[in-house]
């Protein structure tokens, strides 16, 4: 079940936050900003920590189809905790989508692929209802009713 969605702009600022279910703690606006900033930093650091053995040899795991839009080839991708999982999708332009869901059951890699599919759909909605909105200023908080509604519809339909 999807708990909440965050969208971060290229510089790590939080531009959208939507609680879709209420299974987790409510955070204040300030805590949301801190979370976004932390994830933005950790995302970059995680790719620096790649073990040397993988750097030289292994190819990244074969990705699900349509991975061309995913600009995240070495950064942080998923976080698993006892109470929730978090998945991160980065577009080629550097916008990050964060999805917080209930803890993954079973295979973690397939859970990650499922989340990526949902995030890609959210990205499509973002492109359609935010970027094509003539009143939206880039990198600024998203206040678009239609986008809110479409996200809620998408999540309900899952």
């Amino acid at each position, binding site marked *: 079940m999807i708990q909440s969605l965050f969208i971060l702009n290229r510089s790590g600022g939080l531009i959208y936050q939507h609680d879709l279910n209420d299974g987790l703690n409510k955070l204040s606006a300030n805590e949301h900003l801190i979370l976004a900033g932390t994830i933005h930093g950790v995302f970059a650091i995680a790719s620096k920590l790649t073990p040397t053995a993988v750097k030289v040899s292994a190819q990244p795991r074969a990705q699900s189809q349509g991975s061309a839009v995913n600009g995240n080839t*070495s950064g942080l991708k998923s*976080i698993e905790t*006892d109470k929730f999982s978090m998945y991160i999708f980065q577009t080629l332009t550097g916008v990050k989508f964060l999805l917080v869901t209930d803890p993954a059951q079973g295979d973690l890699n397939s859970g990650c692929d499922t989340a990526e599919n949902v995030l890609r759909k959210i990205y499509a909605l973002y492109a359609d209802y935010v970027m094509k909105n003539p009143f939206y200023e880039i990198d600024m908080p998203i206040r678009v009713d239609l986008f809110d509604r479409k996200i809620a519809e998408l999540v309900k339909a899952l």
Partner: protein
Amino acid sequence: MTIFSFWIFDRHCNCIYSREWTQVLNPATESSGTINAKANEDNAKLLFGVLFSLRNIARKVGDTPEQENTLNSFATAKYRAHFYESPSGLRLCILSDLETQNLQTQLRDVYSNIYVEHIVKNPLSPVDFKPGSKITNQRFIRLVDRYLGPQ
């Protein structure tokens, strides 16, 4: 299943043990990789910072009045990091490939059967490691190698 490296951080956030395994065997020492060589490097600090930040996020978002939330692992497209924190604040971390799903039991095993037995119960081992000092107990190193190292 491949394990790339193993790290221990004490409750003062210092890296007190690091072990990196490589695919190539060094014939001179009959072992592969490095022991405690990377602990002072920036990598140990970066890794600790990442684990610390993610653990804080996990607790802020997921804590319930009855139970604390714990961070189990995080993954990038190339590797997965497994995390275990003991009640006394000792933090253990393993970096592995993506096929390795869950190493919580192994981490707990290393903590309770190897660390507690050979470091905590060892009267010659300091209670608190000084900044810069490392675990050099040969028996501990050997047991960790046998448990986690490539077969």
